[in-house]
């Protein structure tokens, strides 16, 4: 009896969490006006790709999609490289002021990114980077949480492994590439999915620094589209689906690492 009740409850919560996605998918395949009727339709009477045609042919969603994809991949690759180098150094090298430096970094994680946005905008403006890819890439070059995550993981790598390689005559850079990086694969996967999703889903910063329709990332393009098409749920649902589908795919492929990352991030220092 208790077992049935618990499963029923879990099932109801699952319906509540998934229903908006179901409606989004369904409405995106409806004709104009078919999603704005009462009582609502849950399944399209006539399946159509009109909304997607509109988005790809008349609106610049293709370039928005590639902006999002290109920037998310590039920021992920660069920040993973920078963060892993720094995280490894924090875990395995001795240098004066290390603890202090690391603590300063950790405690500055409390500073909300909105604080940096005005000066960063002015800086990028003076460099001529507003409305270019650089405006998104530059603030994403490295991040403190990433360095922290890599460091935690590196601490568990035995020093003997590194010492043995050094006795064999390997230099530090070789050790990092050939020994450390392969060991870091799981945490790099975790960080990759965090960074990719974070960049893909980011809204406020791209809204500030990207000013042309063709430069917009998907979330900015979508919010802009909403201004003109607030009465076209079918079109907006198609746009939303295009925006969330890639992140859902990435998440499903790497969910194990994502869940682990959340748990790692929550472990107290």
């Amino acid at each position, binding site marked *: 009896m208790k077992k049935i009740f618990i499963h029923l409850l879990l099932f109801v919560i699952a319906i509540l969490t998934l229903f908006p996605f179901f*409606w989004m998918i369904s409405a995106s395949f409806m004709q104009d006006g078919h999603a704005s009727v009462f009582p609502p339709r849950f399944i399209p009477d006539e399946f159509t790709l009109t909304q997607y045609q509109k988005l790809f042919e008349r609106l610049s969603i293709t370039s928005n999609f590639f902006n999002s994809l290109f920037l998310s991949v590039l920021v992920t690759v660069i920040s993973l490289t920078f963060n892993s180098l720094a995280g490894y150094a924090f875990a395995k090298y001795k240098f004066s002021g290390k603890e202090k430096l690391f603590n300063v970094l950790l405690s500055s994680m409390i500073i909300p990114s909105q604080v940096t946005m005005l000066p960063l905008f002015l800086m990028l403006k003076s460099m001529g980077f507003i409305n270019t890819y650089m405006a998104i890439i530059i603030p994403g070059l490295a991040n403190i949480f990433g360095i922290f995550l890599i460091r935690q993981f590196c601490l568990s790598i035995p020093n003997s492994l590194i010492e043995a390689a050094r006795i064999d005559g390997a230099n530090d850079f070789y050790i990092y590439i050939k020994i450390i990086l392969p060991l870091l694969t799981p945490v790099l996967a975790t960080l990759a999915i965090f960074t990719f999703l974070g960049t893909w889903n980011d809204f406020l910063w791209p809204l500030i620094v990207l000013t042309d329709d063709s430069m917009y990332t998907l979330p900015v393009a979508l919010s802009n589209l909403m201004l003109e098409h607030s009465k076209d749920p079918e079109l907006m649902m198609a746009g939303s689906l295009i925006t969330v589908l890639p992140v859902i795919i990435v998440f499903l492929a790497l969910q194990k690492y994502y869940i682990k990352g*959340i748990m790692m991030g929550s472990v107290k220092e």
Partner: protein
Amino acid sequence: MIGNKSGIAFFFLAPALLAIAIFFFIPVIAAFLISFTDFDIYTLGNFSTIRFIGLKNYLELFKDDLFWTALGNTFLFVILAGPLSIFVSLYAAIILNSKIVKLKALFRLSYFMPVVTTLVAVAIVWRFIYHPNFGIVNYFLSLFGISSVDWLGNPDLALPSIVLMAVWKNFGYNMIIFIAGLQNIPEELYEAANIEGANNWQKFKSITIPMLMPTTIFISIITMIGYFQLFAEPYVMTQGGPLNRTLSIVQYMYQEGFRWWNMGYSASIAFVLFFIIFIGTMIQFRVQKYLSSK
């Protein structure tokens, strides 16, 4: 440690630390300085017009009704959405963690789906779900004979409606952390309680709750920090309306800074936000210290 090789360590650290120093720390300091100036649209054209005006921006904020509205809305959002999301995620974590549950991974996956998806996209979906004429929420209520409600158009309901959407979006994240916390509680504690004949509620109250306290504090800190930065939900769903009842601090900062180019004023708003988040975090650290000393 693998020896004192400061030179190589520096080489490994330099790219990340330089990027963080130049594009994070310097902007933080610059924002602090800008908040004491009258940096505005004219300064943007001709930098020499900038003037140091001391605390004027901050004093101005005190007298600014719209700022107080934004502050009040944001606090209300944090106070409503924070505890509600924590409660929902704890509840979901506890039932999902129960031993008799089948298909755990599948349930966990579906609860987590809103967390990973793009906020702007799902906020748009919810705007239609809340639609007064054809929204699903009103359809569902109409089955019980309740007449149509203008969720996002009614000044009293707009913010609570955004709260519900935010809880839906975020509870899966904290749920995962709670599940990890629950799994760290030693099984023997419950076994000992069983021998003493404790009922489920007693076990929950005297084992689960105290053992989860560090996790709960951590979750309430990150949830609070995140919710104080409320922006995209109202921006997409209500544009801060109706009657500014969903205008958030970050949206006000964005408008002042990047729409009207009152950058000095906007920087002072950003620092008030930082100050609030800082104080909020410190209070929770204190609570944690106090509880763990008991």
